[in-house]
């Protein structure tokens, strides 16, 4: 019984991580470091909540969350690719923008400080939307794999992330593909934000709670490979999966159990390379390197 609870909680905890990490994968395999996942999630979540409240339609809310994610991804992408901003700094800036921006929006739009009004019923065909989104997240793993390894788009994107000069030499628009990768990552991370709102039933400030960074940790853990990254997400989600059990069954104080996802991620990151004894993670060779035509 406990195991089942843990499993269910883990899968739901893994859903936003999966979406964000797969998004990060598409961005980073194209060569753009995406620290901005956290902020994209937050903006996606806010947009989903606001549009759902405004129209009464959770479906429109989902679309709004995804589009907002794509837009913020495009912003980060433009800064990194066209303005040649340092990818990490731009990502951090987006995250700070999201943190203060959504709080500002809460205040301006709803006159509240902490969270939006409740969204009401979030079901589709009698099933909670979170379940639909969890299925989408799981399905995204093979889809992203296929996109990367079996399509023209994926081949070109990977070429841009490994050796943009080579891609450029055969006439590939490096900047365009990189931007496409970041925008797609915005779509997926935006969807991750949507999921958070659909789970909580409203938007709350800082609700992404570091999931974007944990998704990045999953990228490192899975060495930028879709299936391994997905496994990483499940491992890290376990930290949240056991949280309730720790609190309710074992009586660990909530402040301590809240620490679990982060602590688990950090420990796994620290210990896993020692177990694997392999070489350290291999990011795409041109990750974070701006492409400038000679």
């Amino acid at each position, binding site marked *: 019984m406990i195991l089942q609870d843990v499993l269910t909680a883990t899968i739901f905890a893994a859903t936003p991580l999966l979406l964000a990490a797969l998004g990060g994968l598409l961005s*980073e395999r194209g060569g753009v*470091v995406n*620290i901005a996942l956290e902020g994209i999630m937050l903006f996606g979540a806010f947009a989903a909540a606001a549009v759902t409240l405004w129209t009464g339609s959770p479906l429109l809310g989902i679309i709004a969350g995804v589009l907002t994610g794509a837009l913020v991804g495009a912003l980060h992408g433009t*800064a990194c690719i*066209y*303005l*040649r*901003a*340092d*990818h*990490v*700094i*731009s990502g*951090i*800036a*987006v995250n*700070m*923008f999201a*943190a*203060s*921006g959504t*709080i*500002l929006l809460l*205040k*301006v739009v709803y006159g509240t400080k902490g969270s939006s009004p409740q969204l009401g019923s979030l079901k589709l065909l009698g099933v909670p939307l979170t379940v639909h989104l969890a299925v989408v997240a799981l399905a995204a793993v093979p889809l992203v794999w296929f996109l990367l390894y079996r399509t023209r788009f994926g081949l070109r994107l990977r070429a841009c992330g490994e050796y943009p000069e080579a891609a450029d030499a055969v006439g590939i628009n490096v900047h365009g593909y990189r931007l496409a990768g970041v925008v797609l990552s915005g779509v997926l991370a935006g969807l991750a934000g949507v999921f958070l709102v659909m789970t909580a039933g409203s938007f709350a400030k800082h609700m992404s*709670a*570091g999931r974007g*960074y*944990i998704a*990045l*940790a999953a*990228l*490192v853990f899975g060495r930028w490979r879709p299936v391994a990254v997905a496994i990483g997400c499940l491992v890290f989600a376990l930290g949240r999966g056991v949280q309730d059990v720790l609190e309710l069954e074992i009586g660990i*104080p909530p*402040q*301590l159990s*809240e*620490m679990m996802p*982060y*602590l688990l*991620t*950090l420990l796994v*990151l*620290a210990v896993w*390379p*020692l177990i694997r004894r392999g070489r*350290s*993670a291999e*990011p795409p060779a041109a*990750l*974070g*390197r*701006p492409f400038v035509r000679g």
Partner: protein
Amino acid sequence: MKRLLREVAAPVQLALLALGLASLLLLLFGESPYHVGKALLRGAFASRDDLARTLAGAVPLIFTGLAVAIPFRAGLFNIGAEGQLILAGFAAGVTATVFADLSPIALMPLVMLIAMLVAMIPAGIAGWMRSRIGIHEVIATILLNFIIYSLVMWLLRVESFGLMAGMEPKTAEIPLGIRLGEAIPGTGIGVALVFAVLIAVVAEVVLFRTKPGLMLRARGGNPRAAESVGVRSGRVILGSMLVGGALASFAGTQQVLEVHHSYIEGFSPGYGFTGIAVALLGANRPLGVVLAGLFFAVLRSGAFAMDALAGIPREAVGLLEVLIILLVASELIRGSFRKARAGTAGGVA
């Protein structure tokens, strides 16, 4: 000196550009930049108390700015200053309470030292993970931030520790003897501000006039070249992160000793993150950080008045920070002024 002037020129232009863009945005929303600006400046400078608050507000920003800038010079991103300063503030509050009977002359350095050592732990962990396992310090420091938030919340509430003063999530008031006041009475210039400037000067000298500083900047500019002239990369990584943690600790300690006189949960409105903007605007030069810290302190301090008098939510100031970060970070925009950054941060690896 000429070089310093050149390095300062670009950030000043960028700050002006950011303020210009912000004014434009205000106009777009039908607000008068003049009125908003006036309200903001009045809030920051109108009375002696306002001025004192503004100057005191610069202290944590200078320290977090330095806590970001020094590792940045070594090619590292210390996004963990927030967690480090919270941990330090907590340690300072607890130490001051536990050893309240000690004479202030002994207690003051003890509080600072313990807060510093405690804050260096997470910074050191992140440095160690980067140098030994290659885990990017951004990921490690952020995760550590979250761990610290929870840990401190929990420690404060463990009943047998008896740290909480009543029902409020704060430690007991610290002894009067170690509360920081004005350095020169009547000016609003606090002891902590003088200390912050002093530390910045020391940092400036160490960074640009000593061998360790030379090695640190070399590793930030080109790790492989630094290695081949005998710079031990692992040491620089660990060392600069530890220094970053120590500098962040001063921000937390100052908040306890000068401002709140106890550790209060949620005392930091994100000083650690504003520190990123401070460091970047200060061109990652310690003396530049002092100026940038004062600049942001004016914005923050005036934000309340701007909210009250001009009706612009004070959170909007946060957006200005983001705007400045993005402007400074964008090579093309910055390049059109002048290249002024220390080193690259490298990809996630």
